[in-house]
């Protein structure tokens, strides 16, 4: 997994609330058995018409935001299904950070497993960054995971919370399975106890 420590990039504003995983990656793209290559279909139904032409006023089609690496989004981003295709598509497009007031649970944890940092900020701070993002390509937002700060293009600094274990894994690009394997003795012990206490499991 790609490591994440700091990021300086263009932020695309997506103020819509409840952006769901069907919007992020429509189901016809779930038929792949690979993880890669989904970025071309990120937000497909909002980004392209049925003939596959770009819809000019969709934010990521505007010249200013084609290289965006941050999304500033409306409340409850990523609700809906558990499909990890959503963060795969986001990462494949080149977005490494999403900022909102709230995220759906499963999406939130899926982000960390794919090198994406989801940041929760209070509404006024998110709104300020949304305004910032609306300025286009000149407004770069800086994210520092080590210090847990977001800095707007005007130099306003906001701090955010992140679980220390998730932060550690994201900063070091650590694979969860490898980490858990180091604790295999605890799992072995648990299983012995389980077969005594709840043999029907």
């Amino acid at each position, binding site marked *: 997994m790609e490591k994440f420590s700091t990021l300086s990039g263009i932020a695309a504003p997506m*103020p*819509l*609330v*409840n952006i*769901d995983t*069907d*919007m992020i990656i*429509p*189901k*016809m793209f*779930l*038929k*792949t*058995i*690979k*993880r890669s290559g989904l970025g071309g279909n990120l937000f497909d*139904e909002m980004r392209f018409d*049925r003939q596959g032409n770009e819809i000019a006023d969709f934010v990521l089609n505007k010249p200013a935001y084609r290289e965006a690496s941050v999304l500033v989004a*409306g*409340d*409850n981003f990523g*609700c*809906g*299904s*558990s*499909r*990890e295709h959503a*963060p795969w598509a986001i990462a494949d497009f080149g977005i490494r950070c999403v900022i909102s007031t*709230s*995220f*759906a*649970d*499963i999406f939130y*944890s*899926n982000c960390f*497993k*794919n090198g994406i940092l989801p940041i929760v900020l209070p509404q006024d701070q998110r709104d300020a960054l949304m305004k910032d993002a609306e300025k286009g390509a000149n407004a770069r937002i800086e994210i520092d995971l080590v210090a847990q700060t977001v800095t707007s293009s005007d130099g306003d600094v906001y701090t955010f919370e992140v*679980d*220390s*274990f998730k932060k550690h894994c994201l900063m070091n690009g650590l694979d*969860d*399975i490898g*980490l*858990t*394997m180091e*604790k*295999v003795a*605890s*799992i072995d*012990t*648990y*299983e012995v106890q*389980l077969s005594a206490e*709840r*043999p*029907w*499991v």
Partner: protein
Amino acid sequence: MSPKTLYDKIWDAHVADESDDGTCLLYIDRHLVHEVTSPQAFEGLRMTGRTVRAPDKTIAVPDHNVPTTLDRANAETMTEDSRIQVDALDKNAKDFGIHYYPVSDVRQGIVHIVGPEQGWTLPGMTVVCGDSHTATHGAFGALAHGIGTSEVEHVLATQTLIQKKSKNMKVEITGKLNPGVTAKDITMSVIGKTGTAGGTGYVIEYCGDAITDLSMEGRMTVCNMAIEGGARAGIIAPDATTYAYCKGRPHAPKGAQWDKAQAWWETLFSDDDAHWDLVVTMKAEDIAPSVTWGTSPEDVLPIDGVVPAPESFTGGKVDAVKRALDYMGLTAGQKLTDIEIDTVFIGSCTNGRIEDLRAAAAILKGKKVKDGMRAMVVPGSGLVRAQAEEEGLADIFKDAGFEWRMAGCSMCLAMNPDQLAEGERCASTSNRNFEGRQGYKGRTHLVSPAMAAAAAITGKLTDVRDMM
């Protein structure tokens, strides 16, 4: 000992390891697998030379994109990419030695219907699946939730999940439901009240007379949509209804094992003075047959309501509602019962069980669907289908003009060819009314099975109470 909630008790019984910061390795009792979210996980195992740690606790069934047409045995009916996914699941199940119900098996169906039906899901268990509607299994007093593909791989390899504990939320529904009001109306009304983010960070325990009065089928419907309310999981304490459902199922314990199991299950309830981080209470009498009008499951109203105006909302929701009304082709002030539909879908892990089909058939008996209506029933499993045929329900549906399909997810998410065309409007018993969920530019109104049947007859969203 300090008082605990049901969630606390199940959680505590499954912690295999705890770090100083509260991050736990939670042991997983049942891992359900389907064709869409698992191929990359198995690929990951192969690449790293890992195996499935507990193949005996791992159950796979293809459901999301299998055709539900009667001729599906003929491989031609499946698109190339769907077939690749189903073939991959076949191969992965074989290679890794996990339990498997192929399309040709009568027990095949939607993973969340098959698990309980086969007795895989039992009280007090932890159940996960790469699918958000895993919440369904909470109906058994199991801690059940959806996971992403990386976590699927993690569970395959280690039989654990890295988790931090959620908060406790209690949703109490007191009193008795009025006639024509179902479990679906309960769960939709709760989301209408709390919003799609209302449950974020919580595990919800549903309780109260209206919940304990429900059958297991109804309880599964309620828990199924906990995820639409944003919760990590929904859960209902096991009781005599639960035990009666589980007893005798192929993978339920037998004899002395059953007694031992039940003795433990009987300790699984929230203690009287347990701490709740949030409590929501509703009266069953206040719940009416409900329907969604927008593109979020929180956009729900009683059937006798009118389409709301965007201005009646606040914040970002104003624009979201404008967009939703435009997408749905509706105008503020329009009566919900004036909305004409052209498609009816009865099925899904929310409402594809035998009781759902009975409820719909009771309304349809001796009636015909409106001319020009496309109506389909997709039973949740091959066994539900067989039982419905035996009970004569299939004939009622067919006589009324419904298509009688094979089991699968079908038009719930429209990954197979069962889709809405642009602008088509569907009364659907599924769980999501997102833009494009049932087909590009398709319009979805979520309803109960009885309400779907009523709509099929009149061609409009209809108050089922007028037909009873």
